[in-house]
């Protein structure tokens, strides 16, 4: 056949027609469609038998009951447990995303590690558990044998009452080091208030479920405060009560937070003046005689003017409040209209079951002592102590005590030395732990007084206000051991990693979850087998003690951590209304006595006066003792002088009897007002993890693109303030404080107080995986903390800053 144009076209047209008649092209298209959707890297979830495991979420001390759905040996979903007395089915976003904490390979330490390169080079060598524990035991023995057991220090983030915390503290005690430090929490301040005004050394608890009027001075009730599962559940109860019993919520907040937006009334005083606002309301209640006369007359001390044994007259709380905190004065301090103060005070006083709550955000950080006392004074005025829907004084969880620690002479000697952070000394009489002071002392000394630092369930290099100072201190400490399961900022600076299991792989307990008003013991249990070569820190500490030997080994007689827990839990078997066994507690995940004798007020306060103390005799004693210590042996003529010095040193600006009572202290801040005209207020979101657990990727999904865009973090600024600096929505700016600067973007938010910059905690990690690392900035880097009067805790919410347009 001739090869012509015509034949050529014929051939191809025929060929095409013929092919189209066969199923080939259709089959090919179909195959391509299937093939393009069947990449080997599209995961196929494994099949298996469905089962459910009940346990407790221990990612925070809130202890919410959770149910984990399993398929075969894999955990696939976390849900709230509706039969759990803390949260009744509600959990927080972090708890629900817990599987991303468990299974995220990129953030977990998979085996014990030894640092190889220089610190921070991230060159690690996997070692055996035996070698890891031996290394640490030998190190501790080294300085201990030289008679310096206090060279060991621990920073512990476990809940203070939990068995883990007790075990770590016991290790330090038996070795002979007083330097057991804890990550500070708002609960510490609540404990201090309870101790100073009521004589109890435990956090105040509130019967929120039965309250009908909530006056919250900044607690992010819906932003993750307390046990967030419980708070969300309580909120549901408040909201679904019928109209007559609907709980009225007043939120004091400088920003339209979730809580403020949902509250019935939102008050926005100048940040740091909450105490004055509380006392202004106290003024109205006292002046209009709306207080509980029965409680004030019979169960309180220091309300009216009184005479001491020496016949000296003392001013009462009522006199001081009536004199200093009139609504008009308070309006000048706080910016809240006096009319509103009077109105809210009257409403508070006329409610059946009102509660005043002090706190800030999620309660991750300590608060201001006098402020918390001022707020609690409102509860006392209305006689809310031990009343249904008030603040309850209940028994502790009746756990059995362990055998006493065995001390040898080295330990006894070591424990007489002063703590590095000076907590509990005459200067900081009521504070248990002062981690910022610890960093300060190390940074100020020629060589670090600490040789070995243990980091347990904490990431201070990231979470501490002014974390840069802590990082500086870490660099000076010769040997750092991290027990963290995660590759967090602090463990990246460690020399030895002894990784713990993740929360769903181990058994730990929480004793009285944050804010729970009844004695409740929560016990988690392993949901999945450990994924990696990690080991329970409790077990590691017991083996370590045995490896060190001597009296230390004798203090740790248990075979493993479960035995240590079991021994404590044995105290619960016969303590409740129904007998329980170890198996019951393990199966239920809790032990609980919800009974309470409401109304009992006589003989309950453990203060010197046996009453509720508006005038704290403990503060009086502590300050007087401290002032004497300042001028030991000086003639009595100088007493007055040394007393003023004492107040000055303690950071108290009040004078006279007011010092011992709830009052308003203006918190000074480091920066100069002219140079740094704005105030920086870190904020917390319920959907952004802020503690030592890194934010899981699912929670990144819930952040708005005006909170985080690519790697840029937005700060919330009132549009008027922003326009003063010529900063439009989304504009980039430098946020500068005396401590440093951060690069941020601006989000205009009408609900932000003018002249205040609101910056979220929880981003700006320099460690973890690429889903978290480098996203946003960490406000801790520029926080310029000053010390709270008397308590000495760092004030993290009062940094002066300026905005620089770029």
């Amino acid at each position, binding site marked *: 056949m001739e090869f012509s144009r015509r034949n050529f076209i014929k051939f191809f047209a025929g060929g095409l027609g013929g092919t189209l008649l066969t199923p080939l092209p259709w089959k090919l298209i179909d195959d391509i469609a299937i093939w393009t959707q069947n990449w080997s890297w599209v995961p196929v979830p494994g099949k298996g038998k469905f089962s459910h495991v009940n346990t407790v979420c221990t990612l925070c001390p809130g202890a919410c009951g959770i149910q984990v759905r399993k398929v075969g040996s894999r955990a696939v979903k976390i849900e709230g447990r509706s039969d759990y007395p803390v949260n009744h089915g509600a959990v927080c*976003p972090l708890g629900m995303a817990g599987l991303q904490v468990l299974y995220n390979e990129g953030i977990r330490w998979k085996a014990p590690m030894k640092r190889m390169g220089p610190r921070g080079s991230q060159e690690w060598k996997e070692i055996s558990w035996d070698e890891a524990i031996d290394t640490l035991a030998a190190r501790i023995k080294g300085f201990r044998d030289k008679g310096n057991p206090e060279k060991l220090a621990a920073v512990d983030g476990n809940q203070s009452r939990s068995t883990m915390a007790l075990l770590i503290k016991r290790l330090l005690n038996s070795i002979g080091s007083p330097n057991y430090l804890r990550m500070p929490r708002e609960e510490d301040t609540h404990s201090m208030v309870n101790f100073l005004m009521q004589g109890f050394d435990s956090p105040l608890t509130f019967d929120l479920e039965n309250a009908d009027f909530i006056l919250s001075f900044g607690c992010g009730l819906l932003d993750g405060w307390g046990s967030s599962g419980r708070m969300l559940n309580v*909120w549901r109860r408040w909201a679904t009560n019928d109209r007559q019993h609907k709980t009225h919520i007043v939120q004091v907040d400088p920003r339209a937070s979730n809580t403020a*937006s949902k509250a019935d009334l939102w008050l926005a005083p100048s940040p740091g003046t909450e105490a004055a606002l509380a006392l202004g309301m106290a003024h109205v209640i006292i002046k209009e005689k709306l207080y509980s006369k029965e409680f004030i007359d019979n169960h309180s001390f220091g309300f009216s003017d009184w005479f001491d044994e020496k016949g000296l007259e003392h001013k009462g709380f009522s006199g001081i409040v009536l004199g200093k905190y009139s609504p008009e004065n308070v309006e000048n301090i706080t910016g809240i209209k006096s009319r509103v103060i009077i109105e809210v005070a009257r409403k508070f006083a006329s409610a059946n079951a009102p509660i005043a709550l002090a706190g800030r955000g999620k309660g991750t950080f300590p608060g201001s002592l006098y402020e918390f006392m001022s707020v609690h004074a409102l509860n006392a005025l209305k006689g809310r102590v031990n009343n249904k829907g008030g603040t309850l004084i209940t028994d502790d969880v009746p756990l059995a005590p362990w055998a006493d620690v065995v001390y040898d002479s080295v330990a006894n000697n070591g424990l007489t030395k002063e703590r590095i952070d000076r907590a509990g000394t005459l200067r900081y009489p009521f504070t248990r732990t002062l981690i910022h002071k610890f960093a300060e002392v190390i940074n100020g000394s020629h060589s670090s007084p600490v040789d070995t630092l243990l980091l347990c369930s904490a990431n201070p290099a990231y979470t501490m206000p002014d974390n840069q100072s802590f990082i500086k201190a870490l660099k000076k400490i010769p040997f750092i051991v991290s027990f963290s399961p995660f590759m967090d900022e602090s463990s990246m600076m460690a020399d030895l990693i002894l990784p713990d299991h993740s929360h769903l792989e181990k058994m730990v307990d929480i004793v009285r979850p944050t804010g729970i008003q009844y004695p409740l013991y929560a016990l988690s249990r392993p949901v999945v087998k450990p994924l990696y070569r990690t080991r329970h820190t409790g077990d590691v500490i017991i083996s370590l003690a045995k490896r060190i030997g001597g009296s230390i080994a004798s203090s740790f007689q248990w075979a493993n951590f479960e035995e240590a827990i079991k021994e404590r839990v044995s105290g619960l078997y016969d303590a409740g209304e129904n007998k329980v066994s170890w198996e019951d507690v393990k199966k239920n995940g809790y032990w609980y006595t919800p009974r309470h004798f409401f109304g009992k007020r006589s003989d309950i306060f453990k203060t010197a006066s046996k009453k509720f103390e508006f005038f704290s005799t403990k503060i009086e004693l502590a300050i007087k003792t401290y002032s004497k210590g300042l001028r030991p042996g000086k003639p009595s003529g100088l007493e007055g002088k040394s007393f003023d010095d004492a107040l000055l040193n303690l950071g108290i600006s009040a004078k006279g009897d007011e010092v011992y009572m709830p009052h308003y202290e203006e918190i000074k801040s480091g920066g100069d007002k002219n140079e740094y005209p704005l105030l920086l207020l870190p904020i917390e979101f319920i959907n952004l993890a802020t503690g030592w657990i890194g934010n899981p*990727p699912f929670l990144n999904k819930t*952040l708005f*693109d005006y909170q985080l*865009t690519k790697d840029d973090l937005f700060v919330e600024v009132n549009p008027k303030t922003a326009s003063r600096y010529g900063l439009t929505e989304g504009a980039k700016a430098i946020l500068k404080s005396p401590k440093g600067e951060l690069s941020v973007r601006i989000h205009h938010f009408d609900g932000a107080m003018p002249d205040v910059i609101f910056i979220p905690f929880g981003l700006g990690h320099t460690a973890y995986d690429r*889903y978290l690392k480098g996203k946003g900035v960490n406000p801790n880097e520029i926080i310029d903390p000053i010390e709270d009067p008397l308590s000495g805790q760092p004030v993290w919410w009062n940094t002066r800053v300026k905005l620089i347009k770029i």
Partner: protein
Amino acid sequence: MKKEENSKGNRYGMVIDLDKCTGCGLCTVACASENNISVLYDESDKTRNIAWLQIYTITNGKDFPDTEVVYIPRPCMQCDNPPCVSVCPPTATRKDPNTGIISQIYSRCVGCRYCMAACPYHARSFNWFDPSFPEGMDRYLSPEVSPRMRGVVEKCTFCHHRLMRARSKAYAEGRRELKEDEYIPACAEACPTQAISFGDLNNPEHQVSQLIKSPHAFRLLERLGTEPKVYYLSAKNWVRRMADNYLAGELS
């Protein structure tokens, strides 16, 4: 009209009480973990990420300190007149006449994204990338929901697998009708303040049927005639007004 189509069968619907919603984001997390939703390295890219249930924020626009913030969780509206269904060339998405649920069949989807253009609620997401789960996280994937592949559109299914699960259980027990609480999507189950209610709008006994009669009930962009089966409640006037577009001065 089309909406009468399934007046006899079930018509599953949702009511979200915005006055109870606290914006905690738990519904989004519950949805993502229930439905094997992938996570991007950069989740702030809201045009590329996958969100079956997105939360939006609105404010009343008033100056400090009278500002109010309200959150609007937005699942797929499961419209009775779904604009996405009629535009889908390969019939990868269709309305189930027995449940009213709009399905999405991933292996049929050709990724043309007509449905995304048609959906006025932005309820659909496109897989621009292969599904990504951070290293090791494929271990929590649930076998009840198939992971999606690159190039297909996905959206909220009202947790259809939970309906299948509940049905299997009911059938095994010899029942044809589901009880009200037997089938609940993960978001409604998780909502800690119980702002989300779920049930059969055709069943007058179900709570949702009563809730939508409230004078505070409304739907998003109601005037488009899509007839969403997701209702919202709010006692606040400004919130209800913001749910639709109005001309200046127009009275609703």
